[in-house]
């Protein structure tokens, strides 16, 4: 536990705000927030003595005297251009300083079958799973988000619809005049037999220290399908926690691409509560300088006949550090589980580090589970083969790295998005046409 100034300041702030809430403290949210604040008080910020944060030192992050913006401070004309990799026809939902901003989003573009609302306005009684899918008793940042989030966004796909337009949830953080801590909160539910793809992206304006602490809860109802693309190149530090609950026959596929940002910690988990559901976690991390990128994943196989696969790839240069912790839990009833996990890393410099840890806990006896991790420098044999055909060493390296990355990029089903992201990744790897 780390009790620093920020920790105390946040708790004081919570107490002060609670007194000013007037009528709002009667809602269900209030009980949730109070509990979360209590948890945050008890947990404190994690130190590297906490197992889950062993390789990820957050102390430099919490030294800043962050403001918690309570409103949007970005004018319409100041919004950065939407990046190319977000396809033209995407429905864009904007969060500004982590706060859902319906007037900036494009209400006209939202198909009828997609219900977008503020988590603040919605009667919490109807959001009966809100705050239930994502526990906030272990991760201090999740507790913090739950205590403080302001007007998050709820996205519901009605049953029986295939949504053709991708939906992007974009957060812009205003770090132009002071250091800020913003806390986006997302609730997504995909109705029975429905299918949708969702893109998450965030960017910051200005260069004051900024921390984006986001939390997401996702519910996939029976036979629904969600492709979840998380694109990370934010200059703000990023801590995220997301958890998906999957009912029978549902399919969840997450592709996380991290190619920018000095500090990223993603905690991603799935619970397979219905049978015959599928989870796929794919990740690509490009690290350079002294950046730190940490992916903690958990798949909880609760029901039988489910499958999960994970493939995380890292390309690490300079003094960058990556962490991959992949936890797979197979509960007693989850017979016929098929779980596979792989983590592959190419180190481009002697100063780069990967900390990779698989954690398999299996309590059922009729399951197939495997994991594998490789790390090393670029394959000399492959490099020599390409060079011996006349391709110069630097180009040959870029070609091999791009090929390594393309296995993850190819998981992106939307072609427009895949091509644009491929170009960005190729540029970063110095691939020439």
């Amino acid at each position, binding site marked *: 536990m780390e009790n620093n100034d920020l920790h105390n300041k946040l708790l004081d702030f919570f107490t002060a705000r609670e007194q000013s809430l007037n009528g709002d403290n009667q809602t269900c949210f209030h009980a949730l927030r109070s509990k979360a604040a209590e948890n945050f008080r008890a947990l404190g910020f994690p130190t590297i003595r906490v197992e889950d944060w062993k390789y990820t030192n957050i102390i430099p992050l919490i030294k800043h005297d962050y403001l918690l913006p309570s409103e949007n401070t970005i004018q319409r004309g100041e919004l950065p251009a939407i990046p190319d990799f977000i396809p033209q026809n995407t429905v864009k939902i904007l969060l500004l300083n982590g706060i859902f901003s319906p007037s900036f989003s494009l209400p006209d573009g939202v198909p009828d079958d997609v219900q977008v609302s503020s988590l603040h306005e919605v009667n919490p009684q109807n959001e009966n799973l809100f705050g239930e899918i994502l526990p906030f008793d272990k991760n201090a940042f999740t507790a913090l988000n739950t205590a403080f989030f302001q007007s998050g966004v709820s996205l519901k796909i009605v049953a029986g619809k295939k949504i053709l337009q991708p939906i992007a949830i974009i957060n812009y953080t205003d770090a132009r005049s002071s250091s800020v801590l913003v806390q986006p909160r997302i609730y997504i539910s995909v109705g029975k037999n429905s299918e949708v793809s969702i893109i998450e992206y965030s960017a910051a304006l200005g260069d004051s220290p900024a921390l984006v602490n986001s939390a997401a809860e996702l519910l996939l109802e029976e036979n629904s399908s969600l492709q979840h693309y998380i694109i990370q190149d934010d200059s703000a530090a990023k801590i995220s926690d997301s958890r998906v609950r999957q009912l029978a026959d549902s399919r969840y596929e997450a592709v996380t691409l991290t190619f920018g940002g000095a500090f990223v910690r993603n905690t991603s988990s799935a619970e397979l509560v219905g049978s015959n559901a599928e989870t796929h976690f794919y990740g690509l991390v490009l690290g350079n300088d002294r950046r730190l990128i940490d992916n903690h994943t958990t798949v909880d196989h609760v029901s039988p006949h489910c499958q999960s696969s994970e493939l995380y790839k890292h390309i690490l240069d300079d003094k960058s550090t990556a962490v991959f912790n992949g936890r797979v839990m197979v509960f007693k009833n989850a017979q016929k589980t098929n779980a596979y996990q792989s983590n592959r890393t190419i180190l481009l410099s002697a100063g780069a580090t990967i900390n990779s840890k698989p954690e398999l806990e299996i309590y059922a006896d009729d399951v197939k589970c495997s994991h594998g991790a490789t790390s090393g420098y670029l394959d000399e044999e492959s490099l020599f083969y390409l060079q011996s055909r006349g391709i110069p060493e630097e*180009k040959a390296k870029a070609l091999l790295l791009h090929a390594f990355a393309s296995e993850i990029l190819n998981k992106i089903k939307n072609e427009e998005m895949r091509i644009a992201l491929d170009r960005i990744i190729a540029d970063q790897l110095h691939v020439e046409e």
Partner: protein
Amino acid sequence: MLEISNLCAGIEGKQILNGISLKVRPGEVHAIMGPNGSGKSTLASVLAGRNEFEVTGGEVLFGGRNLLGMPPEARAHAGIFLAFQYPVEIPGVSTVNFLKSAMNELRKSRGQDPLDAMDFLAMVREKSKLVEIDKSFLQRSLNEGFSGGEKKRNEIFQMAMLEPKLTILDETDSGLDIDALKIVSNGINAQRNNDNAFVVITHYQRLLNYIVPDFVHVLYKGKIVRSGGKELALELEEKGYDWLKDAA
């Protein structure tokens, strides 16, 4: 074209080549035979520039230039091609894109513009027929999941595309059945002309029935212990290597 003088080389402090001298002129085919461990593949690797081998003595001139000071890509640009004994599988790089990069790098080194896409494809069509390579093959990742025979045909296809001056075939016959051997040999023979040359490294005489050499050299303990015409290969086939070991 190629002049090797007293070449000595090794790996991790272990000497493998103990003074090899060999001259190859345009239009010639030289076979290098020898028992396992005699240094045949090491010679191929040293000529192509594999950096784990250390040259400890001697020199190699290629077209009058000092070959040993050049990185592998520069040797390729100068006109050397090594057909690998074990071609590497490279997932995620398609055969056709790889070849396009290799072709254009070669052209760039000669001050030529990149090949027009249509011309490139026309060339691919023509050369792939030579070794009976199917079109679908070209879109696949380089050598990934290819059979032994497909990998060797792919090597010869690349050679045909890049039109090197000197081709070193490192045990190209290993792992090939008789049909594949014929296809590969036909592909090689079709490339032979008065301006290029081949160094054929093989353990068995069988390949030399199809690719008829002008000279045969026997390598043993890192040295050429005997040179002769194509009849030397037949003699080796009959008597094995032991009589030469005794002589050495």
